[in-house]
C-alpha cells in the first residue's frame, strides 16, 4: 500500500490556517498525528490533494488542567499526574488508546475527530471496489443496513466519552470566527456515520476546555475490545460523579464505540442525582442504557453482545467509581 502524492501545507498560526482554508476550499484534510488519516489514505479512503499539517500552529499545542490543546500528544497527557488525578475517567481513556507508539503521535483533536469505522469502509481500495464501494467512500449504498440514505459507521474514539463526563467544551476557529460549544454539540446527534460532526466547512478544533467544576469527580472509563493491548473500542463507557455522605451528585455517563457518535445519557442519570447508586440502581441504569443504544453489525463483535456488554460495563464502571463503602 502506498500513499498517493499530496501537497503538504504547514501554517504557523490559526490565521494563516484560515487563509489556506479559503484558498483550498474543501480540497484538503487537516493532518494532526496522522495515525488514523494516513492509514486511511493508504487505502484510498476519501483522499484529498492537500494536507494542512497543524504541528506548527503553536496555539494548538500544550495542555494544562484547564485546557487541552488540540495538538497535545496523548503520550504527554498520559504523563501528567495532576490531570490523571483530577480527571480519572480521562486518565483511564488515555491509557486505553491503541498502543504507546500510536499515543506518542496521536493527539487530543485527532482522537475526538477520529474517522468513524466500519467493516465495509476500513478496507483496501480493491476490496471495496469488488463490492461496489459504499456510501462513506466512492459509493452510494450501505452494506451494513442495506439502503442508500444513512451510514452506520461507528464512532471509535476513546477520549470523547471521558471528556463528555468532564463537561468539556471545545473551542473552534473557522473562516467566520471563533466559537465555544459543549463537546456534546461537536457531534451531530441527527447525523450519521458520514455527517457526524457539526463543524462548519474548514472549521478547526483549537482546544478542549475543562471546567474547574468537573475536577476531582470520581470517574472511570471502561473499554470493550478483543485484545486489551491494541484494539479500537467496540464499546467505551465513561462515568463520573461527586460523592457526599454516600450520595452521588453531578452524575454523568457517556457511551462511545457503539453508535455513529458518542453521547451522554443525562435523561437516565438525572433521576439518580443524589441517590446512593446501590447495586440494584446500577443494574437498572445499565439495562436502561443498553436499551437506548443501537449498535449495528459493522465491527468485530456482534451487536447483540455489544449491547449486553453496555449494561455490564455501565454497572461496573459506576461500581468501580464509587468510593469504598458506598452503594450500600
Amino acid at each position: 500500500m502506498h500513499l498517493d502524492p499530496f501537497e503538504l501545507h504547514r501554517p504557523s498560526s490559526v490565521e494563516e490556517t484560515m487563509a489556506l482554508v479559503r484558498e483550498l476550499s474543501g480540497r484538503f484534510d487537516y493532518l494532526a498525528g496522522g495515525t488514523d488519516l494516513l492509514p486511511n489514505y493508504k487505502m484510498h479512503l476519501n483522499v484529498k490533494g492537500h494536507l494542512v499539517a497543524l504541528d506548527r500552529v503553536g496555539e494548538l499545542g500544550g495542555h494544562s488542567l484547564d485546557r487541552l490543546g488540540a495538538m497535545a500528544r496523548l503520550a504527554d497527557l498520559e504523563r501528567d499526574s495532576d490531570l490523571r488525578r483530577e480527571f480519572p475517567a480521562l486518565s483511564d481513556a488515555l491509557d486505553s488508546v491503541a498502543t504507546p507508539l500510536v499515543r506518542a503521535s496521536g493527539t487530543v483533536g485527532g482522537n475526538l475527530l477520529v474517522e468513524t469505522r466500519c467493516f465495509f469502509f476500513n478496507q483496501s481500495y480493491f476490496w471495496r471496489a469488488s463490492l461496489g464501494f459504499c456510501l462513506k467512500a466512492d459509493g452510494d449504498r450501505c452494506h451494513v443496513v442495506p439502503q442508500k440514505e444513512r451510514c452506520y459507521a461507528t464512532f471509535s474514539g476513546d477520549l470523547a466519552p471521558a471528556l463528555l463526563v468532564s463537561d468539556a467544551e471545545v473551542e473552534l476557529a473557522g473562516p467566520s470566527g471563533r466559537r465555544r460549544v459543549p463537546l456534546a454539540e461537536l457531534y451531530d446527534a441527527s447525523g450519521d456515520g458520514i455527517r457526524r460532526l457539526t463543524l462548519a466547512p474548514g472549521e478547526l478544533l483549537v482546544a478542549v476546555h475543562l471546567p474547574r467544576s468537573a475536577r476531582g469527580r470520581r470517574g472511570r472509563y471502561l473499554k470493550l475490545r478483543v485484545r486489551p493491548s491494541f484494539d479500537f473500542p467496540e464499546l467505551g463507557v465513561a462515568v463520573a460523579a461527586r460523592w457526599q455522605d454516600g450520595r452521588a451528585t453531578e452524575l454523568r455517563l457517556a457511551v462511545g464505540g457503539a453508535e455513529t457518535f458518542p453521547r451522554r445519557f443525562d435523561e437516565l442519570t438525572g433521576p439518580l442525582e443524589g441517590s446512593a447508586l446501590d447495586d440494584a440502581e446500577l443494574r437498572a441504569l445499565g439495562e436502561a442504557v443498553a436499551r437506548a443504544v443501537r449498535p449495528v453489525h459493522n465491527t468485530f463483535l456482534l451487536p447483540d453482545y455489544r449491547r449486553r456488554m453496555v449494561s455490564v460495563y455501565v454497572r461496573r464502571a459506576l461500581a468501580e467509581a464509587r468510593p469504598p463503602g458506598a452503594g450500600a
Partner: protein
Amino acid sequence: MSLSPRPDAELKVRGQAGFGMDLEAPGMLWGALVLSPVAHGRIRSVDLSAARALPGVTAVGASDVGVLMGGLRGDAERPPFPTEEVVHAYQPLAAVAAPSLARAREAARAVRLTIDTLTSVTEIESVFPDWPGAEGARSSHVLAHVLARRGEVEEAFADAELVVRETYRTPGVHQVALEPHACLAEVADGRWSVRTTTQTPFGIREDAASILGLAEKELLVEGMWVGGGFGGKNSALIEPYALLLAKASGRPVRLALTYREEFLLGRTTLPMVVRLDTGVRNGRIVARRVRLLLDGGASLPGRDFAAGYSIGFLLGPYATESFEVEGYAVRTNRPPFGAHRAPLAPQCAFALESHMEEVARRIGADPVEFRLAHLWSEGSTTSFGQKVGPFGLPAALRAAQRRAAAWRAERVPGHGIGIGVGFWSTSVGAGGEARVRLTPTELVLQQGEREIGSGSVLVGLSAVVERRTGLPRERIRVDYQDTSTAPFDSGVFGSRTVGALGTAVLRAIEALLSEVARRLGTEGEVRLVVEAGEIHVRSETGSKPVRELLRPSDRSAGGLVAEGRHYPPSGKIDASLVVDGSFYAYHDFAGAAHVAEVSVDPETGTVRLERYAAFHDVGRVVDWPSARAQVEGGVVMGIGSALTEEAIWSGDGRLVNASLLDYRIPTLGEVPPIDVEFLEGFEGAGPFGAKGLGEPPIIPVPAAVASAVREATGAHLTELPLSAERVARALKRGRTSPSPDGSRDR
C-alpha cells in the same frame, strides 16, 4: 547451556539481512496482480488495453502465457491465469509491471474485468448439510474421500454401555508471518531466475517450473532471508507471475504482496467440522467413529493430503479397538487449502481432547487417567498398525498432571486449569543432502535452505556440527547456496530441518571425519579443535593442523569436502484397513502435554491466560535456547488459534478481516508466563536422537485452553475460537440449563 547470540542477530538488527522486500535490481519494474473481485464467475473478458496504454506498463493475461512460454503449456491443471472460470476469491487474472509501484497499481486498476458472477460456495455445511452419503461422495464438490475401518465397529457400538456423540467446528486460521511474499524475477539469455522469500527454494523451483512448463534446470531459485513461513511459503504463489512479467518486459520485475493481499491470496488452513462418536464399556473405549468434513477451498482434486493426514489426529495417540474414520475434503470457492504450522493438528487435538474429557466425565473417570489408560507407549501399535517408537508423551502427560495438581492447590475462584495433549510425527519422509568443507580456519556447511527465523538452519544445523566435531560454533559457517549450486533439500517444513537435513549434515560430517582419520592414519575417534587460531585434528596420537592434512586437490575445492545424504524410508501402515483414499504413516513419534491456567470473566466471557506450562518430548535437545523459543512461539501462536484468530468470510466469498488490525493475533499483552520443560531420552531418528520441534508446540494449546475454560466455568465449548462472545453465550445458556448437555450440536 550456551546463550551466545544467534549468528543472524546482528545482521538483522542492523538491517543488513536482505529480505524479499529489500530486493531491487537496476532497471527493475514493479509488479502488481489483478485479482478477481468475485469468488466464482464466468470470465467474459480480461481487457488489458487500458493498462497497456499507460507509459512503461507491461501486462500479461491468460492469452499471453502460451506466446511468452514459446508454446510450452506448463501444468495444464494449474495455469497461471484461468481462461474461462474464476474458481476462488482473489484468484489472479492478470499481472502488470511498471516503472513505479504507483503506476503498477494504477495499471492493475485499469484492467477491465467482465465476469458473470456465479453462485459461490463458501460453507462446507451448506454443500452437505447432512453427511455426504453414497450420492454425495460422487459430487463434484468432493476433492478427496478417505475411509478406513478396523474391527466390528457397529457391533462394538451396540455393545457399548455408553455412546458419546459430539460435533466440533473450527475456523480457518492464517499463518501471519511477519514478512509477506516478495520476489524479484529476471529472464536473460534464456536463463530464468527468481530470488524469493521461501521455506523451500527447491520446492519453488519444481512448482514454478511445472506451472510455466520450464525444465527445472532452466530455472534458478535463490532464497532470501525469510521473515517467517509457518507453512505459508511452502509452494509457488507469486513467483510464476513475476517470471512471466520479467519475460514479457525483458526487465527484472519485483513483485511483493501488501499485507492485505497476503491475507486475501495466501494459502492457509480452512474450516472443518468434526463428528466424534465414542462407545465405552468397562471404562475402556471400545468403538470410535470419526467423521471429518474439511474445507479444501479451490484445491485441485487428487492433490489434497489434508483429509487423510488430519483424520489420524482425530483418532490421536490413543488405543482404539475398533474404529471407522471417514473424511471428505470439500471444494469451495475459497483460495486453495494451504499449510499452517502442524496443519489442522491443533484443531483436531481441540476436538479429540475435549471429547476425551467429555467421555471421561460422563463415565465418572478422571480425564487424565482416562487418557493415560488409552495412550500409546513405546512398543504399542497405532490405529493403523504401526509400531510406536520411543515415545515420551505418557511421561509428558504425567508431568503435566503433576503441574496441574500443584496449580490447582493454589487455585482461586474464577480460574480454571486444563490439560491438552498433542501428538505429532516429526522429521517427515522428505529427504535432503548436505556438503561440508573443512579449511584450516573454518568448517563450512553448504546447503540449500534459508533460515526462516526459527533458528533451525543456522543454529540447529551448526549445533549438530558442533556436537559431532567438537568445533566451537564461531568456526562453523552455514553457507546458503541457490538451487544451481546447493545440494538438494526438500525444505524447511514438517519439523524436519534438524531431524532430516540434520541427519544428512551428520553423515557429511562422519564422512569428513573418517577421511581425516584416514589421512592421519588412525582408526580411533578424531575431534576438531582450535589451537593457535587454527583448526587442528585431535586423535589419540596427538593433534595436527588441518592445513597439513590438505592435499593439492583439496585446495582447488577450497578445502576438504565431504557430502551426506538422507532419504528416510517411509513407514508402513496396515493397508488392509484402508477402504478408500490415502492415509499416512508416521515417522518419529513426538508429542507434548500442556497445562493452561485461565481466568474467565463470567459476564463478558473474556478468557485470560494466567500461566502456562509445556512438557515436550523432543528426543534430545540440540540447542536449548532455540528449542525453548520454538515452544514459546508455538504456544503464543496456539493462543491465537484458541482465543481470537478466525478468518471471517462473508456469504459471497469475501474475506472480511483481511488486515492485521482485524485478524487478531495475540500481542505480548495476551501472553502469559510460559514454562518449558523437555523430556529427553525418548530418542528419535534425528541426530543424537533429536525429534523435530517446529510444529508440536502449537498443537495442544487450544485443547488445553478449552479444558481450562471448562474447569473455570463449566462451559463445554465445541467451537473455536473461544471468543468472549462465544464463552459468554455458553455461560448464559448454562445458567438456564443446570446440566449442560455436552453432546449438543451447535
